[in-house]
């Protein structure tokens, strides 16, 4: 023990004496352990912080959403699942808030026992007309606590869940259209008073999700009182698990536990989906039936009414008709009568006229008769005369005959003459009678004329009276006739009016009927539509999500993973350097104490006792440094990293814990490095005999270096350069250390900048070189072929639009062997067209690909992840769970996400499904951002469009995410700088210490400070340059390595380092070595010539 005591004392004295060395080793341990423990702890601390946060706020373990909303029955069913502790049904919806000049979109959440928001300021919304907002809401809108806001929730059906649903919204709308006006307001109070500021555990990052409202981006979230919400179904159901807080979030156990429960939920999923679907269908059907009944009654009523009206009209018409007929009849009768009467009158008149005429005729006749009679009389006279004559003649003739008789010759003649005389006699007799009759006739004629005349006079009188009678009759008839016709005309007029009325009524009826018909048709159409749409209601689909699907959470976790990956790489470099530095320091120490070691050995101390001092020395430095380092590291590094991430994430508290695992691991490692290095040096020394040790160690011999043999170079070197060259090769250990240190520094910085280059090249690579479209327009699924085509045609015609490429996209998975990845399957409608918006090409050769039926083209990162080469066959599973094996014919350049490109023909061949365009990739006419926004808003408002994604917006979001990786770069550069500084400083100290006599000598020789400095640092500078050169090479590879570890699955980093980054890395390293050189300069200046030269080594 005594021995040890003495040795211990010696050890502490040694520490006191060589405190600089002790501190330098201590510092190395401090840095090594600090960095290791601190960096390694950062990621667990971050996870721990979110874990604590989530536990405190009772954040869900599993979230269930359904395309058709969730009901109490669902909750009941979920509650009965094993491991489920609590099930919370809750509501959320997007809403528009108008403030001053802006329109902002906010997610309306409600305060619940699950996912409790943290109150930062003010109160929670206790009344239904109150709300709480996030801090940035106040900053962004200029509102204060106590102000009120008006919020207009999105008009959708209750079943709509904003996150998932896009397609089912339309169905929801149908439903409401069936039962029009039945939609209730989502919020009872839409004017809300801001009463507080909260942080939501659901939104720890700036990402708020997307919406159908406004510009499509949710700006803020607000919380309202649950009572304020008016919704039939829950939009989300959150589940917390029994004993869930036993496990740390993201731990394997937790994930398994959640996964296990998710699987159990999966089991009831279908049943519940069907139940909800059936419920909705039933509801809808019931409503339709009701509507149908209503429709039918309405229709019947309408029809009846119409019928009644028609009947009435018809009756009226009949009446009119009969009226008309009667009138006509009457008229006809009247006419007839009048005609008869007229005819009578006429005939009477005619009679009279006839009579008059006859009379006249008779008169004339009579006159004639008279005349004739006169004539007859005259005739008779003449006849008389004639008879007189004839008698005379006859007398004459008789006389003659008689005469003749006298003359008669023959009897016969006599007889004849006698006869003739007889005859004549007879005739004469006749004449005589005639004469008498004529005379009588004559008298009679006279009588007759007289009576005729009398008769005529009588007749005339008679006719006159008849005429008079007729005239009076006619007058009265005319009167009657007029009267009758007026009556008829009146009746007609009346009838005409009635007819008009009926016509009007008929017209009215016609319009009413038309109206009715259109209404009926419409109603019928609606009913048909409704029925059709009910049949179209897609089955409810449950989405069973866990925290991983929360954007903020998952990006946070991803960041912790990046940090963790990083924390694997850095400490290695630090440890290596720490080991090297302590190796040189301890070597130097042991060498300095050769004589002491020799003395001790000569005094009879054994190896262990001698080693004890150095081991204690280095162990103490190591442990003290390590413990200080881990304490600082655990506090500082996670805090620094957190400070950086705090810009992106809102967590109430960052929890720093002392991580025993990492601390002991770090300490152990550094102990092995430093004490191991000590052991190595001391073991080498104690092997020597005391005599050798007591003699001063022969100084390192000067040696000719290889370069000296190359005469033509050596001769040309300046003297001082020769010295430098020789020195460099003389101190090989230092030479190596400097180079490694500088190399490490440069390579870390280069890797840092390289990482930044790679990160910042992703976006331009993807969205400028690969994707050329400006907008991604997804169309509603329910569109018909014509609707779609006409929409596309219209779009193509637009002035702002340059190119529209039709594609069908669906999500799916690809699998090869054990590896599977989620992908987006892109099927362009035209294999050539796609070139306009997406470049498919080989990464290396830049050779362009064209889609064919031969097989699919997959993106490069995907190929890498599933270990696939061209010609391999992979399993592609579509969203509908159809699995097909397809050959890969090309691997195309891509940077973000995974895509599978397939030709239309191949798709139809393999999957046997009909192709229909659902996504349009649109290139605009180089619009600026504002114009694009305007176009987008216009598009979103159109019925055919489901969503519009602007490439610029996507880029912005991604840019935010990726800027977090910039912090990694900062960490890299800062730590690299620190490393460089420590190494160079240490080396510089060792260099000076080791060569103090040499330096003192040249100072004595009269070297100016500057010359002394040059003498020493010329080497350092040369080594630095070599180190930088090597570092650039090493950095190039380190960059690849870090890229490999930091790379997120869905991103492919292009392995590029910009020339400027080489410049930066070189410049920064030079700056660090410059700083060290300045320190060296002053250290050199302080060298005590006398002191250094006095003692013997």
């Amino acid at each position, binding site marked *: 023990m005594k021995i040890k005591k003495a040795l211990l004392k010696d050890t502490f004295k040694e520490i006191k004496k060589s405190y600089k060395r002790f501190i330098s080793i201590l510092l190395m341990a401090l840095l090594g352990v600090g960095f290791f423990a601190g960096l390694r702890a950062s990621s667990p601390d971050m996870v721990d912080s979110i874990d604590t946060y989530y536990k405190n706020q009772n954040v869900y373990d599993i979230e269930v959403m359904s395309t058709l909303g969730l009901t109490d029955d669902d909750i009941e069913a979920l509650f009965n699942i094993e491991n489920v502790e609590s099930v919370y049904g809750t509501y959320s919806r997007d809403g528009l808030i108008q403030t001053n000049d802006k329109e902002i979109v906010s997610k309306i959440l409600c305060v619940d026992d699950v996912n409790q928001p943290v109150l930062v300021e003010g109160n929670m919304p206790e009344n239904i007309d109150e709300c709480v907002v996030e801090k940035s809401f106040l900053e962004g809108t200029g509102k204060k606590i106590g102000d009120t806001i008006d919020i207009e929730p999105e008009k959708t059906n209750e079943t709509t869940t904003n996150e998932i649903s896009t397609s089912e919204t339309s169905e929801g709308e149908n439903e409401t259209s069936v039962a029009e006006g039945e939609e209730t307001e989502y919020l009872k109070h839409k004017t809300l008073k801001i009463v507080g500021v909260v942080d939501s555990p659901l939104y720890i990052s700036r990402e708020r999700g997307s919406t159908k409202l406004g510009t499509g981006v949710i700006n803020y979230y607000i919380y309202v009182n649950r009572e304020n919400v008016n919704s039939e179904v829950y939009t989300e159901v959150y589940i917390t698990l029994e004993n869930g807080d036993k496990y740390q979030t993201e731990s394997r156990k937790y994930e398994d536990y959640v996964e296990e429960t998710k699987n159990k939920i999966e089991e009831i999923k279908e049943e519940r989906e069907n139940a909800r679907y059936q419920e909705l269908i039933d509801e809808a059907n019931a409503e339709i039936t009701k509507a149908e009944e209503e429709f039918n009654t309405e229709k019947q009523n309408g029809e009846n009414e119409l019928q009644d009206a028609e009947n009435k009209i018809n009756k009226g018409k009949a009446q009119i008709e009969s009226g008309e007929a009667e009138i006509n009849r009457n008229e006809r009768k009247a006419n007839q009568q009048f005609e008869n009467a007229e005819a009578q009158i006429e005939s009477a008149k005619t009679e009279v006229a006839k009579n008059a005429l006859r009379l006249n005729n008779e008169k004339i006749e009579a006159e004639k008769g008279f005349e004739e009679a006169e004539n007859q009389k005259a005739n008779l006279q003449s006849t008389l005369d004639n008879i007189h004559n004839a008698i005379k003649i006859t007398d004459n003739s008789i006389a003659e005959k008689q005469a003749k008789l006298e003359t008669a010759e023959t009897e016969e003649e006599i007889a004849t003459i006698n006869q003739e005389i007889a005859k004549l006699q007879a005739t004469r007799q006749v004449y005589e009678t005639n004469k008498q009759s004529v005379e009588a006739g004559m008298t009679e004629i006279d009588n007759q004329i007289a009576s005729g005349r009398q008769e005529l006079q009588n007749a005339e009188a008679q006719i006159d009276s008849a005429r008079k009678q007729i005239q009076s009759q006619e007058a009265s008839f005319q009167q009657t006739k007029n009267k009758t016709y007026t009556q008829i005309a009146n009746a007609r007029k009346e009838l005409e009016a009635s007819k008009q009325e009926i016509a009007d009524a008929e017209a009215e009826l016609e319009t009413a009927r038309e109206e009715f018909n259109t209404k009926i048709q419409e109603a019928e159409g609606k009913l048909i539509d409704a029925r059709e749409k009910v049949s179209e209601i897609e089955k409810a689909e449950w989405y069973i999500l866990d925290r991983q699907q929360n954007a903020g959470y998952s990006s946070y976790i991803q960041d912790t993973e990046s940090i963790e990956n990083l924390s694997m790489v850095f400490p290695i470099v630090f440890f290596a350097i720490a080991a090297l530095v302590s190796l040189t320091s301890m070597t130097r120490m042991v060498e300095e104490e050769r004589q002491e070691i020799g003395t001790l050995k000569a005094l009879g101390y054994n190896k262990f006792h001698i080693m004890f001092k150095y081991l204690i020395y280095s162990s103490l430095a190591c442990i003290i440094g390590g413990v200080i380092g881990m304490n600082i590291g655990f506090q500082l590094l996670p805090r620094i990293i957190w400070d950086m991430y705090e810009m992106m994430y809102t967590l109430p508290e960052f929890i720093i814990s002392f991580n025993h695992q990492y601390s002991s691991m770090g300490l152990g490692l550094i102990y092995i490095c430093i004490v191991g290095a000590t052991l190595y040096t001391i073991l080498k020394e104690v092997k020597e005999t005391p005599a050798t040790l007591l003699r001063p160690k022969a*100084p390192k011999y000067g040696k000719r270096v290889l370069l000296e043999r190359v005469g033509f170079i050596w001769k040309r070197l300046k003297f001082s350069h020769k010295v430098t060259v020789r020195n460099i090769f003389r101190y090989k250990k230092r030479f190596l250390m400097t180079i490694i240190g500088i190399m490490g520094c440069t390579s870390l910085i280069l890797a840092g900048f390289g990482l930044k280059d790679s990160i910042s090249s992703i976006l331009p690579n993807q969205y400028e070189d690969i994707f050329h479209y400006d907008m991604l327009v997804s169309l509603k699924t329910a569109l018909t072929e014509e609707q779609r085509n006409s929409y596309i045609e219209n779009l193509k015609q637009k002035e702002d639009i340059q190119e529209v490429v039709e594609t069908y996209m669906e999500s799916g998975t690809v699998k090869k062997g054990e590896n599977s990845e989620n992908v987006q399957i892109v099927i362009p409608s035209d294999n050539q067209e796609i070139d306009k918006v997406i470049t498919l090409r080989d990464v290396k050769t830049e050779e362009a690909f064209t889609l064919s039926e031969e097989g699919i083209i997959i993106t490069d990162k995907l190929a890498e992840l599933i270990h696939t080469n061209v010609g391999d066959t992979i399993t592609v599973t579509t969203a509908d769970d159809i699995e097909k094996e397809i050959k890969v014919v090309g691997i195309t350049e891509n940077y973000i996400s995974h895509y599978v490109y397939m030709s239309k023909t191949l798709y139809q061949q393999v999957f046997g499904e009909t192709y229909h365009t659902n996504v349009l990739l649109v290139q605009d006419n180089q619009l600026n951002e504002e114009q694009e926004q305007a176009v987008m808003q216009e598009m979103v408002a159109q019925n055919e469009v489901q969503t519009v994604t602007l490439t610029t917006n996507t880029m912005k979001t991604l840019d935010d995410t990726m800027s977090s990786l910039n912090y990694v770069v900062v960490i890299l550069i800062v730590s690299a700088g620190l490393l460089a500084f420590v190494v160079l400083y240490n080396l510089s100290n060792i260099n000076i210490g080791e060569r103090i006599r040499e330096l003192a000598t040249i100072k004595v020789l009269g070297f100016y400070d500057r010359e002394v400095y040059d003498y020493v640092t010329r080497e350092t500078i040369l080594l630095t340059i070599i180190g930088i050169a090597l570092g650039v090479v090493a950095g190039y590879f380190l960059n690849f390595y870090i890229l490999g570890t930091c790379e997120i699955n869905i991103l492919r980093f292009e392995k590029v380092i910009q020339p400027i980054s080489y410049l930066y890395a070189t410049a920064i390293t030079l700056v660090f070595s410059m700083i060290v050189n300045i320190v060296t300069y002053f250290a050199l200046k302080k060298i005590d010539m006398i002191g250094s030269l006095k003692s013997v080594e």
Partner: protein
Amino acid sequence: MAYIEFKNVCKDYKMGEIIIKALNHTNFSIEKGELVVVVGPSGAGKTTALNILGGMDTVTSGDVIVDGKNIAKLKNKQLIKYRREDIGFVFQFYNLVQNLTAIENVELATQICKDSLSPDEVMEKVGLADRKKNFPSQLSGGEQQRVAIARAIAKNPKLLLCDEPTGALDYKTGKQILKLLQDTARKENMTVIIITHNAAIAPMADKIIRFKNGTAESIESNQNPIPVENIEW
């Protein structure tokens, strides 16, 4: 006025609480071309005086005049210039740069001086013309000290200051070195100051300064210096 004059020079060292007076009102003078031997026990202030004279240390008070220049008043940079141009130093332990060959060690000095001598000539002078490409580790102690002397005189200094130049050497070699120094002083008419604790070599000097308790106790001029080879000790 003498070529070198120490006037009332004091030098105090602070060792914690105690102030050690290394030089206490020291006065002496040396003429140009003199070979001076400084003797005295350890801690008497010989080396301190030499260091001050060589511009490696500063005085606390007093004046040091070298060739009409008061070096006690010189600033750091001027002191370096003084060392560079006017002083040649030879140490007990040679202090050669191990990594340089003999000739290179000489060159190390000559390359910073204006009127330096040719390193090859100097090497010849010190009798090491054939060893000049050797590294110090390849030379014996005497040879190394010769190189050190060569390095010092190659600068063609006004003063050659030697602090126990033979301290680490054997008798014979030491004698050879002293001879070299004496010859140099004579031939080159160089002012040479040799510190030694070996009083026996004092007769070789033109002037002997004895130090005791921080002062030059006696300064003795020797009219007949004896060549070193004739001195036995």
